[in-house]
């Protein structure tokens, strides 16, 4: 398991889609082995921002950033850094569960391992499959049907399969973009329990609209806000989760977390 030395250091980050500035001037430090939650109203740029942490925003044509994101002191946006390599170090789980529909459960877990021409022995891959599925609290539910399609699972199981797929490549950091927004409360609880487990081995960043969820799972919380449509999103404040939810230093944060927003 990776040593806890993967601090993320974001400095003066601006994100643009073409000429539109989506996120402005974000600086933050994400400590290794912690769970950091991003909260804020829709459109405030938190999803855009989390995607810049593994360069997934580059999938959108015209998207670019200014500023720096350091993982362990190395700039992810350095001239000779390959985004493919960045994404192997920093895994991602999406809003809607997205196991590969054409692959079995087993192949879904191994999808990342088999990339970039890697070859592994059957025994080794069996071990990775079991370890990753256990890590995602899914093993007992699927161990008898590893060769069945992943799309046959329930939504919550699919999402845990996606988490298993993400941790199979042993990333340093796990980004989760509203991982429970398409799930029922019981599946949500299962994912939240899992996050507390995963925290032992990974640095986790989670975007959520659910403030109870943020207060339950995270150590630190960052509140993003937007002044109006067409304006860029900004980081309002970031602090220990307990402090954000009880005694935030900015009025806007207090309004938002107490439901008096807008």
């Amino acid at each position: 398991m990776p040593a806890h030395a993967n601090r993320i250091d974001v400095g003066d980050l601006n994100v643009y889609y073409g000429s539109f500035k989506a996120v402005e001037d974000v600086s933050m430090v994400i400590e290794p082995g912690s769970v950091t939650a991003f909260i804020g109203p829709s459109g405030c740029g938190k999803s855009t921002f989390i995607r810049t942490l593994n360069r997934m925003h580059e999938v959108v044509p015209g998207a670019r950033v200014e500023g720096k994101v350091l993982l362990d002191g190395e700039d992810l946006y350095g001239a000779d850094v390959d985004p493919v390599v960045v994404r192997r170090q920093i895994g991602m789980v999406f809003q809607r569960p997205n196991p590969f529909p054409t692959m079995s459960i087993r192949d879904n877990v191994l999808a990342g391992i088999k990339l970039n021409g890697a070859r592994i022995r059957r025994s080794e891959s069996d071990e990775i499959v079991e370890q990753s599925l256990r890590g995602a609290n899914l093993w007992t539910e699927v161990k008898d049907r590893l060769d069945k399609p992943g799309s046959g699972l329930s939504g919550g199981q699919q999402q845990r399969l996606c988490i298993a797929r993400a941790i199979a490549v042993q990333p340093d950091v796990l980004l989760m973009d509203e991982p429970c927004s398409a799930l029922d409360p019981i599946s949500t609880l299962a994912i939240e329990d899992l996050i507390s487990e995963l925290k032992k081995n990974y640095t986790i960043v989670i975007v959520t609209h659910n403030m109870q969820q943020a207060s339950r799972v995270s150590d630190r919380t960052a509140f993003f806000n937007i002044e109006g449509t067409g304006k860029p999103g900004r980081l309002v404040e970031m602090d220990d989760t307990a402090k954000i939810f009880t005694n935030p230093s900015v009025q806007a944060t207090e309004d938002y977390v107490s439901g008096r927003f807008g």
Partner: protein
Amino acid sequence: MTITTTDVQTPPNASSTPAKNRAGDRNFSWATRGAGMLILVVLAGVAAFLLLESLPALSADPADIEGGEGFFAYVWPLVFGTLAAALIALIVATPLALGIALFISHYAPRRLSQGLGYVVDLLAAIPSVVYGLWGIQWLAPNVRGAWQWLADHLGFVPLFTGPASATGRTLMTAGLVLAVMILPIITAIAREVFLQTPALHQEAALALGATRWEMIRMTVLPFGRPGLISGVMLGLGRALGETMAVAMVLSTGGFTWSMVTSGNSTIAAEIALDFPESAGLKTNTLIAAGLVLFVITLAVNMAARRVVTRRQAFSGAN
């Protein structure tokens, strides 16, 4: 997603609820039913015509059939020619179409991809008689040298036995013309299905650290596979039945294994070339050949359907 599923759960069959019998509903229902029936009637009519008209040829004394050895001895070289020309066309067109479709859907900048899409669609609008002219006047003289080379260097393979045709009007050339003709169908269908690959899955692959090609291999190709197969089968259908271009380009003749000499013929070309001057049993023989072509095409389409549905649980549709 949940919103759309509640939409679907409305009563699937309006007749199960005692609704008022509205004239508009009734008329439309009859109109669609009529259209549905008509296609079956037409198909059955064609099949019945082919069967009835070919019976005399199938039951005739073998000595009376052209060639003097019965219908099957007459038809199998034509079947061979038909399949060979179509196969050459597929071998050439499928990888090319796949490449063009992927370039348009995933590599080309948006403006270029649109223009390219139009150009490929334009290929489909060219009449086959024009392809035939092009094949005779331009392609055949220009590929003659290549067939000569094949005959010289790979002549020991039965498919390339010399002497190569001096005009270049060989089954190989006909296959190439067919390849160009079926290229737009396969490309258009492949492009459409590739573009429909859910962004969700493509992002999943990229987030795992896949390169663009790996992302395509993991998500786009498996997702588009059934569509690609139907595109190829449509192309095959056209290649099997294409008449004019083959009849013009190919210098027809008796059966030969070699694809680079003149000779061979296809069912469609044979019918087109011989029918105007046929009479009596010869007409029946040609119609029977048409029946064989009908059966081949039907078999190809059924096989394609089996391939497409075989791994449905793993398809992108769920």
